[in-house]
């Protein structure tokens, strides 16, 4: 595993995955099971994203997953990055901030970032359309 991502992952382990968990009655719920888009193989991986909206902005995002460490680092970053954004802004989120914060462009990490962004965009599209 890429050493930088690995370090980030071990920090998450120590902090007990700060964004992990559910949001009861979340404004938006997105789920992927065994999907190549989160690229965790066909071994029972799953990813659930919970977004809380207030005044048209994302106030909180949490997740539940069984996924590889790279995907977990990516989804933790995603939870930070979407906070305070409108759905339209979240849809416009690019890969760059992930690489900048992580300090790595590791190929596997990058695939997870791309997969997660695609999942997020697809999941919030119907809600974003309503907001506009």
């Amino acid at each position: 595993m890429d050493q930088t991502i690995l370090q980030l992952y071990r920090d998450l382990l120590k902090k007990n995955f700060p964004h992990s968990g559910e949001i009861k009655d979340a404004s938006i719920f997105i789920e992927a099971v065994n999907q190549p888009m989160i690229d965790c193989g066909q071994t029972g991986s799953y990813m659930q994203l919970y977004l809380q909206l207030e005044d048209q902005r994302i106030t909180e995002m949490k997740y539940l997953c069984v996924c590889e460490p790279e995907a977990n680092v990516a989804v933790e970053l995603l939870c930070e990055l979407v906070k305070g954004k409108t759905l339209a802004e979240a849809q416009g989120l690019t890969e760059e901030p992930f690489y900048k914060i992580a300090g790595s462009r590791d190929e596997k990490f990058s695939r997870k970032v791309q997969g997660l962004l695609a999942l997020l965009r697809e999941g919030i599209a119907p809600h974003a359309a309503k907001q506009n």
Partner: protein
Amino acid sequence: MNNQSLEKFRSDFPALSRRRNGKPPIYFDSACTSLVPRPVIASLLQYYEQYPACGGKRSSHWFAEEVTALIEGKPEAGITGARRAIAEFINAGSGQEIIFTLNTTAAINTVAMGFNFKPGDAVLISGREHNSNLVPWLRLQKAGLIKVIHTAAGLEDAFDLEAYERCFEMGRIRLVSMAFTSNVTGVTLPAKEIIAIAHRHGARVLLDGAQTVPHQPVDVRDLDVDFLTFSLHKMCGPRGVGVLYVKSELIGKVEGPQAGEDHLEPVIVGGGSVSNTTFDSYQLHQGPEGFEAGIQNYAGIIASAAAVAYLRQIGMERIAAHEKELNRYLTGKLLSRYGDRGWFTILGPQEVERRGSILTFMVRRPNAMGIAEELNARSNIMIRDGVFCVHSYFNQQFGAGWRQPRSHWEHRMIHRLSFYLYNTLQECDLFLDTLEEIFAERGYLE
């Protein structure tokens, strides 16, 4: 028996001479499908180069005669034939009890669809069945023909013969169909006792020998089993060839079965399986011929004989002892390193003797995914992770939602190593070192 004694056979497997990133392959996935030795590859090639014609006594020209002889035998020319070679390998009474199929799955489906079940019959399976010995029965149940009953299997996979016998009070069990050796726990069932009890209750027995026949001696006559299924691709043989052994009394009657008598009918019928047809009728061949309709995988069937000859030359007892030695070594090391950590478990019985060639372990840590992928990427170590087509067993053990836990600390990932004659202690050491690296990097050892 020592590990080095089989080392010389490694050079028979061309795939082992490959290198990636300067390193050799370490293949611990033989329970999925095994590597193939040169004599088997040569046999396959020989068919395509020398006599790429049909068998089954259809054509009687030069090439076809050679194919037919290599399958059905030609004693006067000293050719045993693949059918007889397979029969001898499992000590069947004759080649007429050997039906070639596509694989184990097809063989089990042949029994599911071809056995003369009556509405209300029950099929008894074990609690740790591969989907191939579950879904065919569930389908019959869904169609309303049979009822499926299963015995219990705990994580230790101990078989309770008394509880098994009590199952016969639960329905009219016509067939007991069980994985002889589990592909998850490695446990081989007490088949002789299981069969004797079933016969006492008037039921037939199918043993799914997919994980047994490649790894230990099997004697169908001593077992008195009615059906045995296995796949050549798991035993150094060609892909696309399975075997359905059927006791002769179930298929071999020239006059056909009496009404109500246990009997197996062919499922796929057509060319080659009949001796005569009119526009109103057909006359099926008795015996295996009736079951092998259409042009067959002759190259594979012929190469099956090369595979069993190869295994016999080494000796099944010797192969079994070698696998146990590797398993004992690796189990000991893994348990001494991680056994007390609380998140590392070996599935199945803790006594290695009962697990044969299979070592399945569970890692219950956050993000325990991708370990198999990393073993492969770092050291060319090929193992399997997932649920190994035994979903029902894991769902029963861990609860239906176990694959979507609500906490990182509940993540469970299951990994399986399966050994064969070509594996070595050195490979086990490399596996141990690489696994330790991965665990340490992920912070599991802190």
